[in-house]
């Protein structure tokens, strides 16, 4: 048993506990804990990049290119989240250590999720991912919306876990195994012998899609997103919108591209329809939003639609395009949220109309926000365009032209609300009393610069991560 493969996860877990302990014994200067958490993440990143590949526990745990790729996404997102939480935690009256510890625990859960080779491991990892997030969403004890967010997330999250578990149990009943590789061979045998999937298998697929769909904020399981995103502390919203989605995507890819590839003809069309619904509903409702967090919430609902376009290709190109887009989406989305956090720290507002005139007050901040918005639309030469190009090409390769047409029409719609923020910043004049520039602390600056560089570079030189995404997807070839 090569337990060395578990080293990154174990390390991060212990580091989280370490932060709890440090917090318990410190009586003053709680701000240092953020940097302690950042250090832990950096060490984990190094461990992930230097770890070997292999399987553990008879295939329950895979350490392969796929898990490495997604682990990097989770760790980078966590890094940016904690950087942007420095100001927030300074103001917390209590439980500061727990904040960072919970984020790290959630990340451990995500890392196990990306490595899962077996459904119950996947389920437990999913729980480890989401339960800390329930608590974190309610962290602003002085805000009623925050408690509401936490409670909504808890109830709906719990219910969707139950759905997922039910689907898994049906699957176990049908095939006698929960190991994904064995599921695949068993299903192949069944499929070849009967020629069609039975009602039980269809039902289990639907429950699994429903359970995962909640995590992914897939329409029609998206209702919790706007309220939870608006109520949660904004760094946690950022974390939710990127990391927990990426975790859901990793889980989705593991299950569907490993176990269910043989019956793809049935779920591919369903997902294409769900993706279209997500793009349409997410983009259209985002048009009406006046609060930036809600707007970004609906935008992320739509973005999942784009990501699932890659699923219809049910091949390694499709998986690769999903992985690559998740990666570039992280930069743009985190960047947008971090800008919103920076802005609301100075002005206390999350309303888009308060961004008026930002281009004069803080030209650099406004310019970065504009870049993030344009990347989310998918304007070249930004990274968002490269990601969308890859997704569209994998869909067209499979002749799903109608899906791509839906995607481009909704992209045009999305231009309008993403540019709405740009319009406020550049075309409107700021009310005179607020003609003060936004303070950007070093922590925010670092986080923003990382995000902007990511968005600018990976549109033109995507090679490194494109290759990593291809390698990650190659895992599903056998």
């Amino acid at each position, binding site marked *: 048993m090569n337990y060395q493969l578990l080293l990154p996860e174990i390390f991060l877990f212990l580091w989280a506990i370490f932060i709890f302990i440090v917090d318990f014994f410190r009586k003053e200067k709680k701000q240092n804990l953020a940097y302690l958490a950042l250090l832990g993440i950096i060490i984990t990143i190094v461990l992930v990049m230097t770890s070997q590949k292999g399987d553990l526990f008879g295939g329950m745990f895979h350490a392969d290119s796929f898990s490495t790729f997604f682990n990097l996404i989770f760790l980078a997102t966590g890094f940016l989240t904690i950087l942007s939480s420095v100001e927030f935690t300074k103001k917390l009256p209590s439980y500061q250590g727990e904040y960072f510890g919970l984020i790290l625990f959630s990340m451990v859960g995500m890392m196990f999720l990306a490595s899962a080779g077996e459904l119950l491991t996947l389920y437990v990892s999913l729980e480890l991912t989401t339960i800390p997030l329930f608590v974190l969403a309610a962290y602003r004890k002085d805000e009623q919306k925050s408690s509401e967010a936490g409670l909504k997330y808890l109830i709906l999250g719990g219910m969707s876990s139950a759905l997922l578990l039910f689907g898994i149990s049906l699957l176990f009943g049908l095939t006698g195994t929960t190991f994904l590789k064995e599921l695949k061979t068993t299903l192949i045998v069944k499929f070849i012998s009967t020629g069609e999937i039975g009602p039980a298998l269809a039902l289990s697929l639907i429950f699994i899609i429903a359970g995962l769909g909640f995590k992914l904020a897939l329409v029609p399981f998206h209702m919790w997103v706007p309220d939870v995103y608006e109520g949660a502390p904004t760094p946690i919203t950022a974390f939710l919108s990127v990391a927990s989605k990426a975790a859901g995507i990793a889980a989705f890819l593991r299950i569907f591209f490993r176990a269910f590839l043989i019956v793809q003809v049935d779920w591919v069309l369903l997902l294409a329809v769900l993706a279209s619904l997500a793009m349409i509903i997410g983009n259209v409702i985002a048009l009406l939003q006046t609060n930036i967090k809600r707007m970004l919430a609906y935008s992320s609902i739509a973005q999942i639609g784009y990501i699932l376009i890659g699923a219809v290709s049910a091949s390694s190109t499709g998986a690769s395009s999903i992985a690559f887009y998740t990666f570039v989406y992280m930069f743009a989305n985190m960047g947008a949220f971090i800008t919103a956090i920076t802005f609301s720290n100075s002005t206390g507002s999350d309303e888009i109309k308060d961004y008026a005139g930002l281009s004069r007050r803080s030209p650099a901040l406004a310019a970065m926000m504009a870049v993030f918005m344009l990347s989310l639309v998918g304007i*070249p030469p930004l990274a968002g365009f490269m990601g969308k190009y890859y997704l569209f090409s994998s869909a067209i390769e499979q002749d799903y*032209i109608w899906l*791509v047409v839906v995607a481009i029409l909704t*992209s045009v719609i999305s231009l309008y609300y993403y540019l709405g923020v740009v319009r406020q910043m*550049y075309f409107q004049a700021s009310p005179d009393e607020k003609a003060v520039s936004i303070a950007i602390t070093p922590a925010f600056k670092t986080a923003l610069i990382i995000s902007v560089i990511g968005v600018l570079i990976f549109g033109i030189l995507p090679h490194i991560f494109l290759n990593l995404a291809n390698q990650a997807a190659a895992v599903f070839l056998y």
Partner: protein
Amino acid sequence: MNFPILSLMTFIPLLGMVVILLTKKEQENLVRYLAALFSFIPLVLSFILLSQYRGSTSQIQFVEKFDWIPSLGITYYMGADGLSVPMLFLTALLGFLSVIYSFGDIKERIKQYFAFLLLLEVGMMGVFAALDFFLFYIFWEIVLVPMYFLIGVWGHGRKEYSAIKFFLYTLFGSLFMLVGILALYFNVEPHTLNMMVLIEKAPMLTRGFQLLVFSAFYIAFAVKVPVFPFHTWLPDAHVDAPTAVSVILAGILLKMGTYGFLRISYPMFPQGAIYFALPIGILALINIVYGALVCMAQKDLKKMIAYSSVSHMGYCMLGIAAITVTGISGCVFQMVSHGLITGALFLLVGMLYERAHTREIQAFGGLWIKIPVYSGLMLLFCLGSLGLPGMSGFISEFMVFIGSFPSFKIIVPLAVIGVVITAAYFLRTIQAMFLGTFNTKWEGLTEISAREIFTVVPLAILMIGIGIFPSPLANMIKATIENIVHLVTG
């Protein structure tokens, strides 16, 4: 010729943009001189391009090619031929002249203005130089963002509305082109995005596929040209944009559409070109006549010139639809000529607006008495725009009519009506604004300045030069046009 002239022409303005963004806000004059410098260099390079270009062959020259993202079939491939060289020159020239004009026009947020203007030039140069579809698409879209800001921040009237309308409309069209590009990529073995290779492989594509993808690209290019009924963004964007931006919009951006037809749609989807020839011709006719009629109804000078662009681009489309060497040559001549003439007209309108703060035709009268030099220049360009022989507009319209008549025996005579209407609205405007009794309201008008004369004189020289000696340009484009016609008609 072994330095990468096309990449330099494309990316030096980008370097200029970065340098300008690094200057301090207060150094306004430095920003202006930097902008002038970084738009002058591409102009110099374009002269080199013109002198080094060999018009005797339709082969691509000045090639720069290397692998960019091999796993997706994307190469960095730049090259120029008889179609793109005049466009590259026009872009460099109008880019430079609009920077010079903007010295007096733009008074606030100067740094950002020139940064966006230079970024715009990068996009336009790249579109004409790129020969890989992915590269082409990137440059095509890069143009949208600075245009949005330029119109929305420094424009007048309903600038925000016009800016977002422009962006949405053009993005809508471009995304259909993206679908077309991807469909093309997957339908060719081996998969490639290299335009020249795709042109060669065109006969392999099935007829149905060609018709479909032709239509997809048509949407994108039709919005740009603009073809009726996709033209409604143009009056808003042209009128509400600041002067220099209107010049670039009318002078170059519209030509990106016709360039797209000639570079991509016609060589790669000849079946589509032939099948849709009559509808395209009819729409061209509507552009010409309807555009001219709407001009007759305009009270705002700038809006009238904007609609005249719609009308003039109709001549381009007519020449393209005819698929003859003379017709398409006429189209390319019109692309150059219209860029020069309408560019100058917008500059002149801007100069008047700066002084008088109105663009209403009837508000003026007898201006020749007060500002004779300006009036003379305006008359010159109006006559050029209506196609007076001796100027480039006549050559292009004449070639279009002669070249299209064999294909469209009914449409062409009807299109000639457009020429008459054009003459009517231009002459009427000149009479209302410059002739007659002097309207004493304008006692304080100042004459055109030396800097402003500098911006329009090169355009005048070229307009008359091409009008009297069209052969240099004709020889430059001939081989390439013949190749295009050959590719379509087989």
